């Protein structure tokens, strides 16, 4: 007797899609839950990658930047570096370029003389050399970098400009600095490697010596080094800068700051991925719930299909496929939404759009896995339903 049954793959898919189409709204809503979770996951990965791409890019460029700064003396005041420090550092062979800044003590910056001097807003006044822009590789957001060193001109760090509320500059833009009005000639772009420059008002050494008796002293030296010999130079820097008292100076590698920020971002990404996964889990439970309800409602259909010759396996596949199709549709929608969100976020932050290839693939794989997992139990239940019982459904 001829008795082999088989269900064509194309027919299996058609049966499952028809089953979903018969309950359109319910299918759409439960797929939406998956879509939102997947979109969140893809967006987290994408946004993190886009901003990390920016940081890594900086890290590559800033890895050979070192700083030497004064430590604190017993009194708590920052002692200036020895006057010879910049010149001595410049003599170390792998050092490519050097620039120094000098902390101008006891001088405040305000919008005008009318603002009380207590309101300094945390702005420090630094004497800077023209080479600062090149050594730090920091572009000017506006204007020029101290073009007339003999005149009372000032360049503002990115944060300083915001604190003082100065956006655009013209020949009349001035700030009240240590009892004198200085013309604002430039505003620096943000300097993630040197946060102290962000919050500084930079004036020329000439003016600082003349008005505030700085005497050419430096409080911090920035240097660029042959990238292969960063560690070697760092090891001898303290002694070179202050041979009498090497322990009074602090040597720093600002790119460590970037590394810390990347690590911090990684921690956040982990957190958000965790939250996204929980959202996906909840969506998966929702799918399982919908599928169990579907199996209960469709007992008669299950019985009928068994009577028409469906094997247990065919019934299981039907419900498993329904669940997987549902979450895959949600996954496709979620990946699209997630990529869109990433592009928008990167655009707003001014970062390059960098969606890691794994994000859409992992998103779809996760959706499919959730569908398969969520569909397992309902599919098994449907397959185990004795056909005669299923057909006794009123």
């Amino acid at each position, binding site marked *: 007797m001829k*008795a082999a*049954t088989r269900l*064509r793959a194309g027919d299996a898919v058609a049966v499952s899609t028809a089953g979903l189409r018969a309950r359109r709204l319910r299918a759409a809503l439960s797929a939406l839950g998956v879509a939102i979770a997947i979109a969140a996951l893809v967006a987290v990965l994408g946004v993190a990658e886009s901003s990390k791409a920016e940081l890594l890019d900086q890290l590559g460029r800033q890895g050979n930047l070192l700083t030497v700064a004064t430590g604190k003396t017993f009194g708590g005041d920052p002692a200036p570096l020895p006057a010879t420090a910049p010149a001595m550092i410049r003599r170390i062979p792998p050092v490519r370029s050097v620039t120094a800044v000098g902390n101008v003590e006891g001088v405040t910056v305000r919008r005008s003389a009318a603002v009380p001097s207590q309101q300094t807003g945390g702005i420090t006044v630094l004497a800077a050399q023209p080479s600062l822009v090149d050594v730090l590789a920091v572009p000017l957001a506006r204007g020029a970098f101290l073009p007339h060193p003999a005149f009372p001109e000032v360049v503002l760090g990115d944060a300083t400009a915001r604190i003082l509320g100065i956006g655009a500059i013209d020949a009349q833009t001035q700030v009240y600095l240590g009892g004198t009005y200085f013309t604002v000639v430039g505003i620096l772009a943000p300097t993630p490697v040197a946060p102290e420059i962000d919050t500084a008002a930079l004036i020329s050494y000439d003016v600082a010596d003349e008005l505030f008796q700085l005497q050419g002293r430096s409080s911090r030296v920035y240097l660029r080094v042959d990238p292969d010999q960063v560690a070697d130079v760092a090891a001898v820097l303290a002694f070179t800068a202050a041979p009498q008292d090497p322990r009074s100076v602090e040597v720093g590698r600002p790119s460590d700051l970037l590394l810390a920020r990347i690590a911090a971002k990684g921690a956040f990404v982990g957190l958000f991925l965790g939250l996204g996964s929980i959202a996906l889990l909840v969506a998966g439970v929702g799918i399982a719930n919908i599928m169990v309800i579907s199996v209960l409602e469709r007992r008669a259909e299950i*019985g009928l299909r068994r009577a028409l010759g469906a094997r*247990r396996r065919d019934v299981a596949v039907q419900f498993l496929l329904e669940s997987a199709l549902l979450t895959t549709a949600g996954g496709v929608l979620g990946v699209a939404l997630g990529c869109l969100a990433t592009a928008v976020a990167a655009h707003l932050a001014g970062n390059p759009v960098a969606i890691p290839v794994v994000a859409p693939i992992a998103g779809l794989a996760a959706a499919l896995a959730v569908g398969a997992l969520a569909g397992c139990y309902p599919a098994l239940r449907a397959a185990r339903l004795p056909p005669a019982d299923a057909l006794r459904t*009123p």
Partner: protein
Amino acid sequence: MTTALELHLVNKIYPPPTTVTALRDVSLVVRTGETVAITGPSGAGKTTLLSILGTLERPTSGAVRIAGTDTTDLSDPDLAGVRAWHLGFVFQQFFLLDHLSVLDNVATGLLYRGVPAATRRARAGEVLERVGLSGRLRHRPAQLSGGERQRVAIARALVGQPAVLLADEPTGNLDSATGQEIAALLAGLGGSTTVVLITHNMEVAATMARQVQLRDGRILDTADAP
């Protein structure tokens, strides 16, 4: 005369907590092309008997032979194959799929044989013409009357030209005139198709060549129609 269906000393005891004995030592032989009505009051075991004849349920003891093959040791896929190729079912509740057209509902009768979709539809169209519904192919079941729905269900059972058609109270949801039409349609299949029909309507039972009475899970007597 070859045998289409054979039950030998079949017992069916539903497991606890109910532990109902639905069939007791039922033996029945249905010859190929014969039409048989199984009658009896509610709870007599008619549906259980049909489920066992249709391999939808296994007996607690006893043997079920379909076209000479003992089904006792067949696996689930094998039994599914027997249903797909040899048996057609018609139910009181029609069990049509609401979201499919009349044509696709009937075509579903060939789905689990692995027949390509185009062939399924073509055969469904032919058999729908036979039951007088060729004008209704694109309709949804909800747009049909009860009698028309049962004709669709019969077409679905017949589309694969099964040797045996098993019908459980096919007229139970129909008015008596429509029920008689459906009974006549089924009776007309006799000769080429073996028909076993469950009913507690004597008029419907009379359309079949033979009547078997079931009481409390036992067969009372068998009377061949003249």
